[in-house]
């Protein structure tokens, strides 16, 4: 199997990126010559400095203990609190690790029924959003800061006037996951005649409930159970990466990936125009243009026995459509279709298809719907019209940034609203345009509850006192409604009245409340009756869009690292390489290789794109294998300018501004596209070409059928030859890791988890261009096959903790040594920065501190993990298997006088992997999970043939190919 990392490599081009070691040492020193006389002059400076240094008095450091002993808090001992992530609207359960009163790490909560211990990159990066010096310090009116009491007084006065005049008051909000916050908002609105809460999602899925309104008679967003599906068809839905609930979906999906699970391996077909993270994990990908989704779905409906007419599809797609329909039919009752297009007609077809396939009650759950996307685009369209007509007296914006992410019509209409109130925690685009700004707490500072799925409720509790003079939005709303009370009291009262009576496990409310606080979530018994299918297909057919005549079509998609752009100022997320393109710090225009060739574009060229009547925007070009030829793709969530640090340089372009309401729903629709070339080149900070691995076989795959026929047919592990070094003796433990490539989706949660846990610095775009990114754990992405339809592989790559480590025997100062637990230790205080080790590492996983990387600002520094040394300039560093976590677990076991239990010591990457693709443990314990994984016939090591005996190994990716197509055999050779 020949794999490749980039088109340049495949086509044999020389890749001109800057060399990591191109700059002369010492970096940044001025160049000058020195004479003998100068030599003595400078020696004299040295004498003086040495004298001063040698004689200087000790720097006096103060130690301030607490005034009062804090109950349950011992300085230096971590505390864990169960809470609910507020990073997006998925509502995953998290455990927050607090050290000395400040949260430093967020991890998935294994007790949460949906996310099951997983957490995505965005969720893991939330602490950086908490410790953000760009957050607002207090309320302001027309840009003038004032005290909360004065603010409330001013606002009450204005609201009173509106009330007296009978003016309309609206709250415009993102999905409100917290039922209590919703109640507070409604309580506020109740004081006004016809007050209304309008909800929208920047990454809108509003067409789905609108479709169910037609097919099932109720606005409902179904809950999808991927673990109940044996055949999954995803259509333009990046459900493993960015769509609705990626962590929950990944957790359920991964339980049926690979051949060794309790239930049979699912087959996943993805039909899409861009190459998404989800598409890269699919067993089979179908390329289609956005306008082909509707005919494709219509054809599927007909092939699956539904009524209606369908035209022929283009050659190639027709056969694949028929094969897919056959698969869907064969798995009737356990097949599932997911569609991510925000248009009503394809969503109606999807709902009909799921009904025809008997998915309702199985993978499609209508009795316990999802509440993670509550947006109603049509209501927002109506709101904009009202605002434009001057009918809205006051608009309050909560948990949304509409100036940034709604069509430009909103901005124009917004100016016509007299009283504009923002509850944003930063001075974002919308807050800047508001008259009143009442900043909300960060979610880690506030009490909240969440109901992401009907009947699944969780609590969010504050981890620290508010850092700044902000106020909980819930308390603000209640206060303005004249029902001022603490958020905690309000939530407790509501839970006592509404949640507690719906459960039967606990008799006392106090016990129930503490149990949920400790565990994080509760699933209530009983569900609403599911609505029945009662569609009139003829009526639906009237909504069929006219086919698009355009030669090119635009796809706007969110990225794993940025989502809707609300975390745009989080440098961890900006520097996270896109899982597929591996580009950092930018968005860009993606073109298929054939299209780029036809239009004369190369990677890094500049293209100016005009969409409809919107202003033209210049974007760098990325040539993306696997993309549909007609599709131009641009990521959303970039180009934010307001609400970040003062010296922030704009990153990327805002593609939200191209969207319009298309048939009532947010989308780019069939606006005319004009693409032209602009002189000059852009530099894209791509990490995929860094650290070339010289075409060796690094990933392996085989088909499910071949594996099931003979599990032992997976290629055996290389047996390295004899070593000239004596074998290492191992002590009480010997750590090893196995990563299952069938489960790994490339979501990159582990990359950020590692970064947060290990105080890994952000280096910035310019340094990434010099190949100096610092991530200890990266995810290598490989393509195999043709440029137009490649298979994609993701391979997490970190220090492989070799037993015969090539880095160890070249270090002149013994700064990298083997521990008796099999770890390849890096000793920062010994390292003198020769970089011989990095040079000799075949995996290129060692990272050098080229600079004293600023962990900038007193507030930002609070995010550092006190258990890990912050490395200084000139020092080499790399993955340590999270040795601080291993030590903590071992110390706990020793303090309790017992042996370490399997699964107790886990590195950060493994802990939060939503797919549970990583297994780690002590191979000296024969019953451990890792020992079982080590015996797996699918296991292989990367570059094991070099005889370096890595402690990290991988499981061959199993691909569930269509049995009727004669792929057969495995691609081991």
């Amino acid at each position: 199997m020949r794999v490749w990392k980039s088109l340049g490599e495949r086509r044999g081009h020389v890749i001109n990126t800057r060399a990591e070691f191109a700059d002369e040492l010492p970096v940044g020193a001025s160049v000058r010559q020195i004479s003998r006389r100068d030599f003595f002059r400078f020696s004299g400076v040295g004498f003086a400095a040495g004298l001063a240094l040698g004689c200087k008095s000790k720097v006096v450091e103060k130690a301030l203990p607490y005034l009062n002993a804090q109950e349950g808090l011992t300085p230096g001992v971590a505390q864990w609190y169960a809470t609910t992530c507020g990073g997006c609207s998925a509502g995953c359960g998290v455990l927050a690790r607090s050290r000395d009163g400040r949260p430093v790490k967020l991890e998935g909560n294994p007790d949460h029924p949906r996310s099951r211990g997983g957490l995505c990159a965005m969720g893991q990066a939330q602490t950086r959003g908490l410790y953000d010096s760009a957050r607002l310090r207090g309320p302001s009116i027309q840009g003038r800061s004032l005290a909360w009491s004065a603010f409330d007084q001013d606002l009450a006065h204005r609201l009173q006037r509106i009330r007296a005049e009978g003016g309309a008051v609206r709250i415009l909000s993102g999905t409100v996951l917290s039922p209590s916050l919703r109640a507070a908002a409604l309580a506020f609105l109740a004081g006004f005649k016809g007050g209304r809460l309008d909800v929208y999602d920047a990454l809108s899925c509003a067409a789905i409930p609108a479709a169910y309104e037609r097919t099932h008679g109720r606005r409902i967003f179904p809950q999808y159970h991927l673990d109940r599906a044996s055949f999954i068809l995803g259509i333009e839905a990046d459900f493993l990466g960015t769509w609705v609930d990626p962590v929950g979906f990944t957790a359920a999906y991964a339980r049926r990936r690979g051949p060794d699970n309790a239930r049979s391996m699912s087959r996943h077909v993805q039909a899409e125009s861009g190459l998404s993270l989800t598409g890269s994990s699919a067993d089979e990908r179908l390329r289609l243009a956005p306008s082909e989704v509707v005919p494709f779905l219509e054809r599927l409906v007909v092939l699956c026995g539904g009524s209606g007419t369908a035209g022929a599809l283009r050659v190639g797609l027709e056969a694949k459509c028929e094969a897919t329909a056959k698969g869907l039919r064969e798995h009737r009752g356990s097949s599932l279709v997911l569609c991510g297009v925000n248009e009503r007609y394809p969503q109606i077809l999807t709902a009909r298809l799921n009904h025809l396939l008997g998915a309702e009650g199985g993978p499609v759950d209508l009795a316990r719907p999802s509440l993670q996307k509550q947006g109603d685009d049509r209501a927002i369209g109506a709101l904009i019209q009202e605002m434009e007509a001057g009918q809205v007296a006051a608009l309050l914006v909560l948990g949304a940034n509409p100036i940034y992410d709604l069509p430009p019509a909103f901005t124009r209409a917004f100016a016509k609203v007299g009283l504009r109130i923002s509850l944003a925690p930063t001075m974002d685009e919308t807050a800047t345009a508001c008259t009143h700004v009442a900043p909300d707490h960060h979610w880690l500072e506030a009490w909240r509850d969440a109901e992401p799925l009907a009947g699944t409720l969780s609590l969010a509790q504050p981890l620290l006192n508010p850092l700044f003079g902000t106020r909980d939005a819930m308390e603000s709303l209640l206060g303005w409604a004249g029902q001022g009370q603490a958020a905690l009291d309000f939530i407790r009262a509501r839970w006592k009245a509404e949640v507690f009576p719906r459960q039967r496990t606990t008799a006392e409310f106090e016990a129930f409340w503490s149990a949920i606080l400790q565990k994080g979530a509760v699933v209530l018994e009983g569900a609403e009756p599911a609505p029945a299918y009662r569609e009139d297909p003829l009526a639906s057919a009237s909504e069929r869009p006219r086919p698009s005549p355009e030669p090119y079509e635009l796809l706007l998609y969110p990225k794993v690292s940025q989502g809707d752009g609300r975390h745009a100022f989080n440098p961890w997320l900006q520097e996270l390489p896109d899982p597929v393109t591996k580009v950092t710090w930018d968005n860009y225009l993606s073109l298929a290789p054939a299209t780029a060739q036809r239009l004369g574009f190369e990677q890094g060229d500049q293209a100016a794109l005009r969409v409809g009547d919107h202003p033209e925007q210049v974007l760098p070009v990325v040539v993306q294998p696997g993309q549909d030829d007609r599709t131009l793709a641009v990521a959303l969530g970039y180009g934010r300018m307001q609400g970040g640090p003062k010296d922030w340089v704009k990153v990327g372009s805002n593609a939200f501004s191209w969207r319009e309401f298309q048939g009532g729903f947010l989308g780019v629709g069939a606006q005319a596209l004009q693409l032209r070339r602009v002189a000059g080149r852009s530099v894209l900070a791509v990490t995929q070409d860094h650290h070339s691995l010289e075409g060796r076989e690094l990933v392996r795959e085989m088909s499910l059928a071949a594996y099931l026929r003979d599990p032992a047919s997976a290629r055996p592990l290389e047996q390295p030859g004899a070593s000239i070094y004596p074998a290492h003796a191992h002590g009480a433990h010997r750590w090893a890791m196995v990563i299952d490539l069938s489960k790994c989706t490339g979501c990159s949660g582990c990359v950020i988890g590692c970064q947060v846990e290990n105080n890994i610095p952000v280096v910035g775009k310019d340094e990434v261009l010099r190949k100096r990114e610092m991530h200890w754990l990266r995810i290598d992405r490989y393509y195999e096959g043709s440029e137009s339809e490649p298979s994609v592989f993701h391979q997490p790559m970190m220090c492989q903790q070799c037993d015969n480590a090539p880095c160890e025997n070249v270090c002149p100062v013994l700064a990298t040594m083997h521990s008796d637990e099999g770890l390849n230790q890096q000793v920062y205080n010994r390292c003198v920065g020769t970089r011989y080790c990095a040079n000799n590492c075949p995996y290129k996983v060692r990272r050098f501190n080229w600079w004293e990387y600023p962990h900038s600002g007193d507030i930002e520094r609070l995010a550092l993990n006190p258990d890990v040394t912050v490395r200084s300039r000139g020092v080499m560093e790399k993955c340590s298997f999270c040795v601080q976590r291993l030590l903590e677990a071992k110390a706990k076991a020793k303090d309790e006088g017992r042996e370490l239990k399997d699964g107790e010591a886990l590195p950060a990457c493994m802990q939060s992997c939503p797919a549970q693709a990583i297994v780690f443990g002590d191979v000296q314990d024969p019953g451990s999970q890792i020992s079982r994984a080590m015996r797996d016939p699918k296991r292989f090591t990367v570059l094991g043939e070099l005889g370096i005996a890595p402690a990290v190994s991988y499981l061959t990716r199993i691909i569930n190919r269509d049995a009727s197509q004669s792929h057969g055999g495995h691609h081991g050779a």
Partner: protein
Amino acid sequence: MNMRTGRVALAGAVALGASVMILLVSVDTKWLGDNSGYKPVQPIAYSHALHAGELKLDCLFCHTGAEQSRHAGIPPLSTCMKCHEVILNRVGTKPGQVDRSPEIEKMNQAWKRGQSIAWVRIHRLPDHVKFPHNRHVNAGVACQTCHGEIQGMERVEQARTWAMGECLACHRAENQKLQMNGKASAAPTDCTACHH
């Protein structure tokens, strides 16, 4: 002379001068980084000799973190006030007499103001060293092993150099002792046990 060697020579010149001077200064006193004997004046003249020596208060009574945390911890003022709410006199004052201690008074004032005492920190390891008190205390290592005869100190001083050699000497001796008794080593000598 080319530019590169020029720069190296410049750096070398400064380094040479500095190292000669540091050496000269150090010969008379101690190596850089050795803080043994550091005995600063504290804002309150708290006596370990009195509390730990004479009154035999257990170290853990105040340094409550030592068994659970990597930090032994300096007690919060509220711990001091457990006793000093009522004990206000100088040591040795006869019952019935009043002889207020000015040091205790300082503490009472701070307590009333709601202010913590800013002690001068004596014991400090570099940032790249992680010393877990809990592991050592729970393994039965006496506080005095590292902190010296603290129960006799009127004013606390750093008793030892705390160079890495001292740590390792103890760990190795401990392992030898265990092995002679047929047990596995328990005091790690791996780099990452302390440096991570």
